[in-house]
């Protein structure tokens, strides 16, 4: 009860501050729309898809997972600013739940990702993408879990390194191979065997496959439960680890 209340308190505060900044809201909406409008038209020929709608079925899930990963991974920067302002220290002297300090923030990130995802899905519907609503909700669940994990990890790392200068290269080095090896932008079906083998070790690759299966209406596919299980386990681990950083971070 106290935990739920604490989480809600932090979530409210963080959301309020986010909405107060019109630049962020604008970027958050504008960026995904650009991807959809400017990048997607290249896809039909590139993917050899029969129709534009078929190309979207492959590209949109990838784009959503991409946003979930990046939306989360770079949240740590805001936390470093808070750390520097003394806001985290001030929170840590109160009896508020340490898990709530993390989760309130991460849930804000999950919700803002969901808003982006809905905008993109609606736009894609205009371009003849068709998804069954149940499948779509499961895909959103997968995205929420990914965002929860990446944002929690980003917060945890931020509390450990405590400086933007260290966080930026670190997150980039993590993000790049993860991105390239997950088949987000182009499916790995064209990849040579060795690349496939490496990608099998990339949890995001499983998440992308699962999300694509859901967009394809293939609910029964093994990839769906595999993707969901892997992301759920990783999200739980990420949250657990990051909450511990909140509990013991020094300065």
């Amino acid at each position: 009860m106290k935990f739920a209340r604490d989480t809600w308190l932090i979530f409210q505060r963080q959301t309020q501050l986010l909405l107060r900044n019109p630049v962020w809201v604008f970027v958050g909406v504008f960026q995904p729309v650009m991807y959809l409008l400017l990048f997607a038209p290249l896809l039909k020929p590139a993917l050899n898809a029969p129709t534009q709608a078929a190309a979207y079925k492959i590209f949109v899930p990838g784009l959503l997972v991409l946003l979930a990963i990046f939306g989360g991974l770079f949240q740590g920067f805001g936390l470093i600013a808070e750390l520097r302002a003394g806001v985290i220290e001030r929170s840590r002297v109160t009896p508020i739940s340490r898990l709530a300090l993390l989760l309130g923030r991460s849930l804000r990130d999950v919700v803002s990702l969901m808003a982006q995802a809905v905008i993109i899905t609606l736009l894609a519907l205009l371009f003849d993408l068709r998804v069954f609503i149940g499948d779509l909700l499961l895909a959103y669940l997968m995205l929420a879990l990914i965002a929860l994990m990446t944002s929690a990890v980003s917060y945890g790392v931020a509390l450990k390194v405590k400086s933007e200068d260290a966080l930026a290269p670190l997150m980039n080095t993590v993000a790049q191979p993860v991105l390239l090896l997950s088949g987000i932008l182009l499916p790995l079906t064209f990849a040579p065997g060795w690349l496939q083998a490496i990608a099998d070790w990339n949890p995001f690759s499983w998440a992308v496959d699962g999300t694509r299966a859901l967009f394809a209406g293939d609910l029964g596919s093994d990839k769906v439960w595999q993707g969901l299980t892997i992301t759920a386990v990783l999200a739980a681990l990420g949250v657990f680890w990051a909450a511990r950083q909140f509990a013991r971070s020094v300065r």
Partner: protein
Amino acid sequence: MIETRGLRKSFRSRAGRETKTVDAVRGVNLEVAEGEIFGFLGPNGAGKTTTLRMLATLIEPDGGEATIAGADLRKDPAEVRRRIGYVPQGGSTWDESTAREELVLHARMYGIGKADAQQRASRALDAFQLTEYADRKCKTYSGGQRRRVEIALGIIHEPKIVFLDEPTTGLDPQSRAHMWDEIRRLRRDGMTVFITTHYLDEADALCDRIAIMDNGEVVAEGTPTELKREISGDVVLVGLDLAATPQAAQALDGEPYVNKLETADEGGLRLYVDEGATSIPQVLRRLDQAGLDLRSIELHRPSLDDVFLTKTGRSLRES
């Protein structure tokens, strides 16, 4: 109210390839009584903040124990948090929030209900004369206004003890005087106040009792008067022309109340006496008898800096 025994903390820091260990706090024993303003005086790097952060449950001590407002620091940090307020040295407000938002949020982080939190925020804004700026973003505040918001944050839940880490650093003399009044008001409201400072006059004028800290250790503890009394005697500075100085030295040397006499190179004398107030008339009389004109006479009472000097061999002003 606060009792610590052998509180210790070292930090390991990496400089290049070597790891260095800094013993920031090396065994601090303190006793702070209920309802007093307790001052922690020491130069930069003495370990004041580190001690405070340990007492505020922000970092775990490497060794030692402490009881704070009846709760055990090691066994029950959660209870300690409920009973104390803490205002960090480097600020604690968010640029984009308003003072009122910060106060309400902070009260609610202590589990206080929304309506109550709003009332408390209004009352605190009033008490700290912040109502006028209450709904402006914190980034628009002056240093002094911001510091007042931070102190209001530290006491919004009416703790038994509040820790203020350098509450007046960076304020102009007038704001400092105001801040002293605020701090005295907290004590009047029944709070125990624990402040750190490196201002001698602040420790002297504001604090009921002080501990002088240097290099991770408490080197002296007591009321400012007690500490100064330990350094026995006053100094009388007699201003004289260079030509008159040797004669005056001759006249005053051997007077029973003069413990020690020094001549200054540029003329004038330093007399070490037990009690300045009674010695000065005698000095004046003696010099008059000898027919010597004096330019000035000044009484110098021992300051906390002299206390620090005797205890550590360094002056706090220089470090």
